[in-house]
């Protein structure tokens, strides 16, 4: 087991190293001179040259890359070009908001999606099954930002249940924060919820058809016990795998949701930095997001290494 964990850990390190390489090389092609962006159009060529020197932009690419990775390793992601602050600090300010709404969405998606999938599988072909399948089909096709627009129209503008936009920390004003966070969380969760329902349904169906389920039934076990102890236990691994994929999708969708609901999180930061051509911030954000996704996947892999001994050996 320890060997398995170490192997996966090493893989994650290699993957993150690749991420730095990819992100760095993509952003090298950015049009425009960061030094000029930093100083504005009136700066003299000497000033630009000086800033280039300070930022290390006139050094060879390989040196720039190594310096960046070295600093990133020490928690220093450089200085923002547009806002002129430390990127690590900026991210530290934005990240908790994104983590908070993403975490809530993930929990919501799982606690609704998985039971929905179980119900659909048990009542296969029934009315509930078709309803769940319609909802999950639509759920996977609805753009999160359009759903957000619909929610704002009906629940904020027409019914006045929730504020249109904004974000308050739950530690400052829990009630207001919850009211503001409900719609973004639902919009973020919807697509993931649909995937969970579908995945759970098909995994359950596969297990339900197997011999041991029939045996359990024939020896007179109660239906509830069969579902929970025999079927669900075996069907849960593909569902856990999906968590890893959905972390990626939920974090990805925050760029829309935070934009529409005006939440100052990582997603909005990335979009704004792209508009500002602030490549230092974009670089840092993508790296942090990739680390979060990779670590989540590492945890998931290790967790079912525990659950299923067969996976450890592979």
């Amino acid at each position, binding site marked *: 087991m320890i060997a398995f964990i170490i192997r996966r850990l090493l893989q994650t390190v290699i993957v993150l190293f*690749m991420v730095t390489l990819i992100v760095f090389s993509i*952003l090298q092609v950015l049009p425009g001179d960061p030094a000029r962006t930093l100083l504005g159009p009136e700066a003299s060529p000497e000033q630009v040259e000086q800033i280039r020197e300070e930022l290390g932009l006139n050094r060879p690419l390989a040196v720039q890359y190594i310096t960046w990775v070295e600093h990133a390793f020490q928690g220093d992601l450089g200085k923002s070009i547009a806002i002129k602050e430390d990127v690590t600090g900026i991210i530290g300010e934005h990240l908790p908001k994104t983590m908070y709404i993403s975490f809530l969405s993930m929990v919501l998606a799982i606690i609704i999606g998985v039971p929905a999938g179980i119900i659909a599988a048990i009542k296969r072909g029934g009315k509930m099954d078709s309803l769940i399948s319609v909802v999950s089909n639509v759920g996977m096709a609805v753009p999160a930002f359009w759903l957000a627009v619909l929610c704002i129209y009906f629940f904020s503008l027409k019914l006045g249940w929730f504020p249109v936009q904004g974000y308050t920390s739950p530690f400052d004003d829990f009630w207001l924060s919850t009211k503001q966070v409900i719609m973004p969380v639902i919009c973020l969760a919807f697509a993931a919820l649909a995937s969970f329902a579908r995945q759970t349904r098909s995994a359950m169906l596969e297990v339900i058809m197997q011999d041991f389920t029939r045996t359990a039934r024939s020896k007179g076990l109660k239906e509830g016990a069969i579902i929970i102890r025999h079927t669900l236990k075996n069907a849960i691994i593909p569902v856990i795998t999906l968590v890893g994929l959905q972390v990626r999708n939920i974090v990805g969708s925050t760029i829309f949701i935070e934009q529409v609901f005006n939440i100052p999180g990582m997603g909005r930061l990335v979009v704004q930095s792209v508009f500002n051509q602030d490549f230092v911030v974009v670089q840092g954000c993508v790296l942090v997001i990739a680390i979060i996704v990779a670590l989540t996947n590492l945890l998931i892999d290790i967790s079912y290494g525990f659950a299923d001994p067969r996976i450890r050996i592979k």
Partner: protein
Amino acid sequence: MTIEIIASEKVVEQEVKKTRNTQRFLRVFLARKTVVASLAIIFIMIICAIFAPLLAPYDPYKQDYAQILADPSLAHPFGTDMVGRDVLSRIIYGSQAALLVGIVSVAIASVIGIILGLVSGYAGGLVDALIMRAMDALMAIPPIILALVFVAAFGGGLTNVMITLGLSLVPTYARLMRGQVLAIRQADYVVAQELMGSTNIRNMIKHVLPNCISPLIVLITLNFGVAILAEAGLSFLGLGIVPPKAAWGSMINDGYKYLLSNPILSFAPGMAVVLVVVAFNIVGDALRDALDPRLKGSL
């Protein structure tokens, strides 16, 4: 004489089997009404994209200041936008961008992904490790954020959006192909071929590729929906198709500013996205059921 007859009978038999297979495929594929409806939606979308100039009641770029933010009426079924352009016409034209992005980005993703997956699966060792870790790295970044980074570097616009989305979809194909290659290489008939001295490349193309066709077709169909969603997202953020060119995503964003007075401006293009993406997803699922040999054509 006998040999000839037997041979021709064999051919006939094969022909019959082929048609039977096709029939079985069609029977399963078209069994559900939702699938037929989805095919119809996709068909309508394609027609809209190709014949947009004929079908659109108005010029989608003509600004009519006498008709700013008009409510839906017989003349303008979905009303007009903030500069008096007909929303229905813009939705019809928007199908062009969506369809084009879908086709080109999926083509880019599948070609690159298939090649990488084949090479990775066949070469093994260091090459395999390098390619797969690179794919893992790409998969650690949410596709839409990866697309944003590409757009930041290369700029927006139709061509860049297509390339960008294509590249961010590559890892799924590479992984699928590699898995298939590894599985099929174990099969006796491929091992036999290798023992008989057939070269790797010939083996790859002759045996592995045809066996991967079914999962690929399914993935490609499903990815159409993914690409159209992503294009709408980028255009919504103002980083995709450049205005004034009609795109569903940017129409949703334009309409958002007039949400209280003219909600239809956002609702209608969003509905178009949902319909088309649902259609591709349903067709993809139906293809999976129909092509899956394990299900043997049963539902």
